[in-house]
């Protein structure tokens, strides 16, 4: 039986408009969310504080390198201050993503527009991640300074620099996705930030310390594998392992998937 022209037009239209809108929706939402960070002083303040602290810790390590040998990757990525401020920033910039929209009610206008929940989650994640990337960009100047002012005859190896940034970007994506998920669970930004901070401290602080304190082989193994500190130590020396890469990427996808589910759950409450 031939399909009626009306039915055909209907499906074609639906498919075309869907394809047309999918990507542009994500970009539109991403743009709004990203710009929202800079509508108030908050975005600028966070970036300035980050640059101040990472810059000071860079200076301090440079001063130390006068008396002892420190590798490039160590100077750039192994400062606890650098990581502390990166993690705090992630908690701060992911907390409003859903919590604030839910609190102010804008989530309702957003989710009743012709967008899918997945598009919204993806756009919000991308906006927060872009903020982290923009915030990290100026730290490239540290690497440039190290290159320009290295001792005569000293070699400057690019590899630890690249792998160091790789692990920063991987860990950043993982925790940002985790923060998005925490924000999707609550309408209080404070609760979201606290949950996000607690979760990050599990893989960052707890795992790092627990692997030495435990005398339980399997648990010790698990904590060694998920310890972000361990990953940073390896990658900033140019040692690339596929295991953490898979761990962070799959973790990112998992938390984004859970966020979509958490947003969908509004339908059935």
């Amino acid at each position, binding site marked *: 039986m031939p399909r009626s022209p009306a039915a055909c037009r209907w499906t074609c239209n639906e498919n075309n408009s869907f394809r*047309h809108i999918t990507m542009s*929706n994500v970009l539109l939402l991403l743009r709004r969310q990203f710009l929202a960070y800079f509508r108030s002083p908050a975005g600028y303040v966070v970036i300035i504080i980050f640059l101040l602290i990472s810059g000071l810790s860079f200076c301090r390590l440079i001063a130390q390198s006068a008396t002892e040998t420190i590798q490039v990757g160590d100077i750039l990525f192994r400062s606890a201050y650098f990581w502390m401020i990166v993690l705090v920033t992630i908690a701060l910039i992911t907390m409003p993503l859903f919590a604030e929209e839910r609190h102010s009610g*804008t989530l*309702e*206008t957003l989710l*009743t527009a*012709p967008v899918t929940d997945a598009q919204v989650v993806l756009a919000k994640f991308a906006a927060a991640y872009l903020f982290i990337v923009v915030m990290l960009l100026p730290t490239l100047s540290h690497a440039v300074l190290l290159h320009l002012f290295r001792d005569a005859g000293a070699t400057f190896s690019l590899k630890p620099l690249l792998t160091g940034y790789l692990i920063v970007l991987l860990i950043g994506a993982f925790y940002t996705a985790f923060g998005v998920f925490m924000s999707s669970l609550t309408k209080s930004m404070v609760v979201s930030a606290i949950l996000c901070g607690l979760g990050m401290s599990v893989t960052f602080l707890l795992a790092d310390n627990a692997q030495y304190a435990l005398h339980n082989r399997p648990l010790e193994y698990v904590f060694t594998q998920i310890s972000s500190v361990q990953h940073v130590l390896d990658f900033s020396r140019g040692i690339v392992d596929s295991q953490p890469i898979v761990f962070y990427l799959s973790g990112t996808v998992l938390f984004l998937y859970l966020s979509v589910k958490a947003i969908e759950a*509004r339908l059935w409450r």
Partner: protein
Amino acid sequence: MKDRKNIIKVKNLTKRFAASIAVDGISFEAQRGETLGFLGPNGAGKTTTMRILAGYLAATDGSVQVDGLDVLEHAYEVRRKIGYLPEHVPLYQEMRVAEYLQFRGRLKGLSRRRLRNRMDEIKSLCGLHNVSGRIIGHLSRGYHQRIGLADALIHEPELLLLDEPTIGLDPNQIRAIRELIKTLGQKHTVVISTHYLVEAEALCEKVLILNHGRIVAADAPAALAGLLKNKTVIAAEIAGPRHEAAAMLRGLPGVVGVIAGPCRDQNGSPAGEWNSYVVECAPEADPRCEISAGAAARGWALRELILEKKKLEDIFAEITGSVQVDLQ
């Protein structure tokens, strides 16, 4: 199946929340081009019904179709046909008016060129020309309402869902918004929710009165208002058994009907044994003396007896706020 006549078809819609039933098996239809009103007190299920129509919540049971499409299964297509203004008009406070409307227009699938023309139309329609560069958070409630309406309208939806569009506005703003909705009603199918009887009367061709998640009456507003109008109406508050007192009032000469419900104190909780009654009488009748005598004879205290001084809508709101509704 696309239905040429009805744009909204709701059958046995039920929404249960953890502890309560917000909407309890309601069914209704809205014809294309019609303006339909949900009338009822807070907590009657108006907002929940709106949210389900807009696809923000899912129904626990029953079917909801817009233009022949299930609102959840075809969420994407349905949402492009709907312009929704939620109750408290949530807006991104930090954005500028024009920028916000452009963002929403693009999100709803308008092309850049179409949007450019549409922006002018929508700004003049909603009276936003002189604020288009202002930051939304700095504008008044009335402007927020217009921005919300402009947002709902920007993609020229067939169906407009407006949840309490005049709440929190001053009388001039209310008049302006009502005029605007009236204009919109000529081109679009409009569903508005309100707890003002006069608003429903002024704007809607059909009114559904909701109470406790059920439709208690559905008719043209003139017919519904006729239930109370063209009669003398007396509001009375009597402390005594509700059914006996209602029976006493019905028995008085000239009384046509009695609507009874518990009085509310200032917190909105029932005020002990006090009940309020709306006594509808024949046009010329004035049984106030008989009412006071009847209450006194039975030893019931009487603290209010007003001859149509209260606005009809206040009485209505009080009554639908009660447990028992007896519209006859």
